[in-house]
């Protein structure tokens, strides 16, 4: 067990001998070590979060043909720290009539729900918090806490806009959770396990080649879960000002904001884990766990960049279109994909890998083309309802 092949356990073993050397019982020593591990991980995440503020601002600036922060520190890297100081010394206003306990609890739960996701992220086979065998459901459970935080924030701040915004946001969140769960079932079917590490281990062929449509649906649903454009219901300024966090100021607002950014990055990471092989990259992961962790973080950053790309390119969709898109398109499609994937998997999983992959790809292509054909027919019918029957243009007229 050397430092390079298994850093976490090496450090843990060293600390165990140190602590038991001081006369602590073994269970207390392991508890303290686990606690330290969590503290280190959470601190790194918060640091990453601060860095993400800079990334987000820099990227949006480039998309909008601006420079972005570039005054404080090299390339403006110190800018987010200045932002934090600003948020800390802002006056903290609690609106009259607010339910103080719930009002203060909401941002805490909001950030906590995002941090909790990282307990199951496998950065490398040797660097992972816990290899929970119910990983996929755990993601949904953490998301449930986030939904709860939104309702608590809105109700406790005693503001009509906040409550309306939260209701819309929650309606969108719970709706898009359905296709999200359905496509999370697809990697589970393919890997035969819900554990994140097992799913990564099973991806000798990255699942994106077996279920490209599922990967697409996952990222669409994830963007909606994040409440980002084009599904940014809570920031429909022209209708409900700032949604559920309208009354929040200073650090509490900052916590919501930090949670949102880290959430986006985290879902980039889960996209990579579920569909793009996680910490694996053409055998590079065998070099060592730190390389694996770097691979996963790089993939997560690409996923995050993709989410930002969508956010700054596509306009907000109206809420009725958004919900219709979910219930009448994404949800049926996701369940059809699940059924077909399960069937093909059951028939062909023991045959040649090439045949298996090609069959999966073909199934996806057939479903995709069929859906496009159905959509074309439906929209033609809708158009004819408004414009009258379309007449074929005869030649020569």
């Amino acid at each position, binding site marked *: 067990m050397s430092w390079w092949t298994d850093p976490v356990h090496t450090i843990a073993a060293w600390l165990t001998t140190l602590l038991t050397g001081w006369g602590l019982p073994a*269970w207390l020593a392991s508890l303290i070590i686990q606690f330290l591990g969590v503290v280190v991980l959470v601190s790194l995440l918060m640091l990453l979060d601060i860095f993400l503020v800079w990334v987000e601002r820099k990227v949006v600036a480039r998309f909008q043909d601006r420079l972005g922060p570039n005054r404080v520190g090299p390339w403006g890297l110190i800018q987010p720290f200045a932002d934090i100081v600003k948020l800390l010394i802002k006056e903290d206003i609690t609106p009259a009539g607010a339910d103080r306990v*719930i009002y203060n609890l909401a941002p805490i739960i909001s950030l906590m729900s995002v941090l909790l996701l990282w307990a199951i992220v496998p950065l490398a086979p040797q660097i992972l918090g816990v290899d*929970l*065998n*119910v990983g996929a*459901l*755990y993601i*949904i*459970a953490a*998301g*449930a*806490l986030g*939904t*709860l935080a939104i*309702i*608590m924030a809105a*109700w406790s701040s005693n503001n009509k806009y906040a*409550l309306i915004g939260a*209701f819309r946001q*929650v309606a969108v969140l*719970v709706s898009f*959770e359905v296709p999200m769960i359905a496509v999370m079932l697809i990697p589970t079917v393919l890997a035969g396990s*819900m554990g994140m590490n097992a799913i990564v281990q099973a991806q000798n062929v990255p699942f994106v080649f077996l279920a490209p449509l599922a990967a697409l649906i996952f990222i669409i649903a994830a963007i909606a879960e994040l409440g980002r454009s084009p599904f940014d219901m809570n920031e429909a300024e022209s209708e409900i000002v700032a949604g559920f966090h309208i009354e929040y100021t200073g650090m509490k607002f900052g916590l919501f904001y930090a949670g949102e950014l880290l959430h986006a990055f985290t879902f980039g990471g889960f996209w990579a884990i579920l569909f793009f092989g996680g910490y694996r990259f053409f055998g590079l992961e065998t070099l060592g766990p730190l390389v694996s962790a770097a691979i996963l973080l790089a993939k997560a950053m690409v996923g995050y960049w993709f989410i930002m790309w969508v956010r700054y390119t596509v306009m907000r969709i109206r809420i009725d279109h958004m919900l219709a898109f979910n219930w009448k398109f994404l949800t049926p499609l996701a369940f059809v994909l699940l059924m077909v994937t399960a069937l093909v998997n059951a028939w062909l999983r023991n045959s040649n890998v090439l045949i298996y992959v090609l069959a999966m790809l073909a199934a996806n292509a057939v479903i995709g083309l069929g859906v496009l054909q159905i959509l074309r027919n439906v929209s033609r019918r809708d158009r004819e309802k408004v414009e009258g029957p379309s007449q074929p243009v005869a030649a020569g007229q």
Partner: protein
Amino acid sequence: MSLAQIVFLVVAAVILGSALLVVTTRNLIHAALWLIVTLFGVAVLYALLNAGFLAVVQVVIYIGAIAILFIFAVMLTRADLRDRAPQLNRGWWLNIILALLTFGGLIWLFQSWTGFSKTAADIPAGFDAVAQLGNALISPTGYLLPFEVASVLLLAALVGAVYVAFSRK
């Protein structure tokens, strides 16, 4: 006392305390939020009992969906019954006696049973509860019929609730 016992006592106190608040709080939103605390405590209890899958399911279904539904329903039925009005029926002290009697009766019944103070066997290391559960759910000798009937039940609930909530007059 072992760590598990300490955790159990703390969780049990949280569960019972918040459950009492659920049935006595005037503000219904607060009652729903206290219900969430209770449900979370029960989820911790499942984790303590090595039923990790059920712990997560408890959070997903109860906190993620049922509690949200309750909060929506409270918001939708803005009614005469606001925080000031008495929230309990007139004979509530009778109900306390009834509940206490039920509790005493249950404990008395349990007491007379031989397995009351049983302790659990250790779960072997390679035991995958989720896969076992899946096998049990779809094997024809197991719970195949309840599995399919559950989906019919959910279908009936969906159709019924949509019909009831949406019957326009």
